């Protein structure tokens, strides 16, 4: 609870600072604020209480995930200075909106009631619509925001419809209440209306996570959105939506796997295939990362399908590993764009020569996403595969590993370009804090890979 409050306060204060034209204070202030709210979140550990008649449920899952999301945001803000170096006007609005979006995400990780879920999602989405279009001059940015807005609101309509149907059949918005309803009606079969609601809910969330066939927005929007915010989308938003979905499966729809698991499994399979295969052909890193994020959503669905007591943990680990790697990749992407104006793989040629740390970071990120031991990505994948195999979803796992095998094809493009292709004498201007933070990300990836038990036993 405190974290939400503190975040909101932070957001408002940021706006004030903007009014006071205190540009230089902005980022430090935000970083400090995020740290404090992160601390507050962590203080909720093992608190396990519900607020406002189960409107919000503060449990370890929620705490862990929201901590992760706040942390990711923190990292992204680390790179904000670099990204907006050339911009002169105070960016308080954009930062504030990012923070509000974060609040939405945190709500999604705590919600105990469909109303809260809806509010969380909408807070997140509306903020994102704005962010996506925040680069007003660029036509791509406009297109991105338009597409995102139209599709987003369209699908949130379905989400709402789903909520309505569930409400209609169960007569409540409260997750536990619905669950009791489910438990009562499970043996004489759930009414179609409820089922329809359930699936519409899943669909609404799949859109946010970018599960095929609801992934179409992702590549375009990612490409059009300003890179920093793309990183935000790719890490925080995805995590939030995943945890939201997890809450459904762990609380409300607990005990009726039979109803949804096959559908989700098929969706996951399609997503993995489409994400990886399509990613293979992408000419530039940003769009490639979009597809990679799609495929990773597929992998996370793998964990949902193979639902068990360890799923939360597996998801957490995977989300962390994925977010870290992705953010690192986007950080390097920002540099490349700055130096070269574009992010086609050609622009990566030989940057390893003069920019060892940057190249190394990107390489590690890519390897981690590919799932090569001993990096965090591998452990995450291992957890998912293990869970899936344990539950006997062998065919799905086969698709998944086929996907990872294919993914080598595109994750190695930047590595090859950076290390094996001839040098063009590029030198990336990265500030010291920037370098430190990417190094930090790299070390984190390695650390989680070598000492996974730091995170694996958490929830």
């Amino acid at each position: 609870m405190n974290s939400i409050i503190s975040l909101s306060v932070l957001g408002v204060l940021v706006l004030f600072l903007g009014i006071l034209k205190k540009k230089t204070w902005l980022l430090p202030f935000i970083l400090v604020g995020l740290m404090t709210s992160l601390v507050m979140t962590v203080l909720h550990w093992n608190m396990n209480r519900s607020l406002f008649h189960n409107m919000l449920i503060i449990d370890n899952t929620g705490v862990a995930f929201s901590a992760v999301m706040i942390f990711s945001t923190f990292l992204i803000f680390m790179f904000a200075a670099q990204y907006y170096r050339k911009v002169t006007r105070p960016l308080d609005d954009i930062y504030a909106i990012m923070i509000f979006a974060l609040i939405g995400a945190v709500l999604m990780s705590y919600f105990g009631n469909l109303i809260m879920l809806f509010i969380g999602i909408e807070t997140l989405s509306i903020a994102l619509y704005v962010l996506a279009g925040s680069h007003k001059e660029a036509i791509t940015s406009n297109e991105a925001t338009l597409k995102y807005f139209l599709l987003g609101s369209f699908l949130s309509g379905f989400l709402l419809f789903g909520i309505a149907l569930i409400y209609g059949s169960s007569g409540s918005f409260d997750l536990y209440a619905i669950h009791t309803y489910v438990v009562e009606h499970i043996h004489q079969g759930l009414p179609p209306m409820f089922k329809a609601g359930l699936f519409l809910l899943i669909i609404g969330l799949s859109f946010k996570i970018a599960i095929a066939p609801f992934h179409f927005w992702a590549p375009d929007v990612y490409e059009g959105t300003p890179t920093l915010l793309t990183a935000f989308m790719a890490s925080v938003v995805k995590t939030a939506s995943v945890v939201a979905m997890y809450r459904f499966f762990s609380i409300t729809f607990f005990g009726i796997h039979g109803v949804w698991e096959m559908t989700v499994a098929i969706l996951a399979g399609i997503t993995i295939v489409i994400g990886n295969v399509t990613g293979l052909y992408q000419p530039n890193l940003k769009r490639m990362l979009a597809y990679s994020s799609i495929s990773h959503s597929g992998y996370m669905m793998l964990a949902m399908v193979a639902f068990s007591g360890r799923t939360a943990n597996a998801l957490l680990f995977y989300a962390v590993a994925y977010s870290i790697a992705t953010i690192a990749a986007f950080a390097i992407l920002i540099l490349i764009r700055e130096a070269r104006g574009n992010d086609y793989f050609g622009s990566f040629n030989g940057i390893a020569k003069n920019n060892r740390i940057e190249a190394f970071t990107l390489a590690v990120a890519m390897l981690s996403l590919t799932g090569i031991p001993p990096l965090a990505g591998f452990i995450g994948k291992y957890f998912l595969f293990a869970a899936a195999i344990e539950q006997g979803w062998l065919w799905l796992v086969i698709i998944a590993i086929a996907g990872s095998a294919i993914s080598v094809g595109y994750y190695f493009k930047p590595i090859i370009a950076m290390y094996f292709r001839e040098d063009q004498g590029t030198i990336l201007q990265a500030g010291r804090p920037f370098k430190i933070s990417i190094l930090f990300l790299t070390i984190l990836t390695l650390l989680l890979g070598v000492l996974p038990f730091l995170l694996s036993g958490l929830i």
Partner: protein
Amino acid sequence: MTLLVTLIPLLPLFGFIILGLGYRSIPKSIASILGPGTILISFILSLIILFNFHYFAISPFHHLFTWLSSGRFSVAFDFLVDPLSILMMLIITGVGFIIHVYSIGYMSQDEGFNRFFAYMNLFIFFMLILVMAANYAVMFIGWEGVGLCSYLLIGFWFKNQRFNNAAKKALIMNRIGDLGFLLGMFLIFTTFQSFNFVTVFDQAKAMTPGSGTMIAITLLLFVGAVGKSAQIPLHTWLPDAMAGPTPVSALIHAATMVTAGVYMVARSSVLYVLAPETMEVIGLTALATMLLAATIAIFQNDIKKVLAYSTISQLGYMFLALSVGAFTGAMFHLMTHAFFKALLFLGAGSVIHAMEGEQDIRRMGGLKNALPKTYWTFLVGTLAIAGLPPLSGFFSKDEILAGVFSFGLPVWIVAVAVSMMTAFYMFRLLYLTFFGSFRGSEHQKTHLHESPAVMTIPLILLAFLAFIGGSLNIPELMGGSGVLKEFLAPVFADAVKINQLPHHNIPAGLEWTNIGVVILLVLLMAWSAYRRFVTREPETETRNFFMRLAENKFYVDELYDAVFVKPALRLSEGLHKVVETKFIDRIVNGTGTGIIKFSNTIRYLQAGHVGVYMFFMIIGILLILFFNIIL
């Protein structure tokens, strides 16, 4: 005693290592002492062993160390020094020493002097290992080792790719045989759980004659022998092997290595007598080889080639003897053959030396005045191989013929025919080389000279041996005691006991008449050869189809080339061009490219139009709802 026994092979090895490491620094003088010296000591040691063995009956077994061991399976590096081995050791070291001495003179001008002696010593080492081995595995070491040495020595002048090809051919042919030998060993092991001669033979005695495994074992081993001893169909390497320096031909390709097959069969006599069918196979192979080689020999013009083919046919003799169970006879002939064939080769070497590398006998003639020593020794050799009494060849051949006669008349006739042909081509060689008028170039004529003492003395020594060598085993018929027979008796005792072959004794009169007939025929041959090649000029002889066929070795090489070598190369091409690139590699790359193509197609789903996206999403939604609600 074990130490002494061990020293016998180790000394040549020692010589090899010294010469090999210091092949640059060591001066020729030292090399020419070290090389033969080690062999001489080994020879003396072998004599000591013989002496001890004979009078103090020391145990034939000498254990060195365990070589391979895995679980129950274990191969020990053991020596078995029984009469058979001792005989071979004496031949190898003795003849070896003489040839080494000869080489000092022969190779004196060669810059690879040290290398040569290093290889020769290495060869002696492996050869000794081969004959001293107490089990098949260790025997195999020597078996392969001598093959290697012959490879190295045939290709000694490696500048010349033709020689290298000959060397390669020799090793590969040997390897083909070795595979058979190896499989035979494996079969032995799986049958008797051991490689040791003694164990194997003891168990084998219990087995029923003519059993399948026995036949398989013996046949496989014989394949090895065929490879080593250049019998049909693997005989083609030996003539080419003459590319090597002449002493090599004398030592390796006449006296010792090529007889390894004979030795091996004799060693495994117990197994062979248990497989009569195999014996027949051996007999037929031997007969075929004898005939073929002899016919070819008649029409060869290269002095060494003639000798090479005669070697092949003489080896055929030995195998024939083995096939009729006359093991002692085979060994006896092996020994005498070592003497006179070495002698002949060295004589040829001396001739070539004098003719400055000329090997074609059509360019020679009338050398007997220029090289008297060579001529006389060569004459002895010829008489010996032709089998005229009282030279060694006569006794050994006679013993074999006797054995064959008791076996069956037709075989005897063939054998006699071959011995006649032998006489013919040997005398042809003799006449064309030493009689008549000189047909070489003027330059050669002026440079004709007798070889130095270091080369002639070995000739004389060998001539002496070739002369009296027969006395070792004069049959009872001629009031001889058959020393060798008695000496080897214990080795072949079991074999003879088991041997089922018919052994009705022949009346002495018949025996004598046979001998007489053979001698007469041989003399006749000598005379006809004289008529043909001395009184008439050799060039005038016109050659009909058959002659040309024989002259070209019946085109066996060409046949092999067409049947094995070329197809193999073409197959290799084909596999690489078709299977490898077009098939296997294409599948792998195809998967990759296929996925990329797939990607290139489905990425167009991302049409960029919001409407399209919405449309797809709706379809997705409807499908999900349809499958979950309606169904």
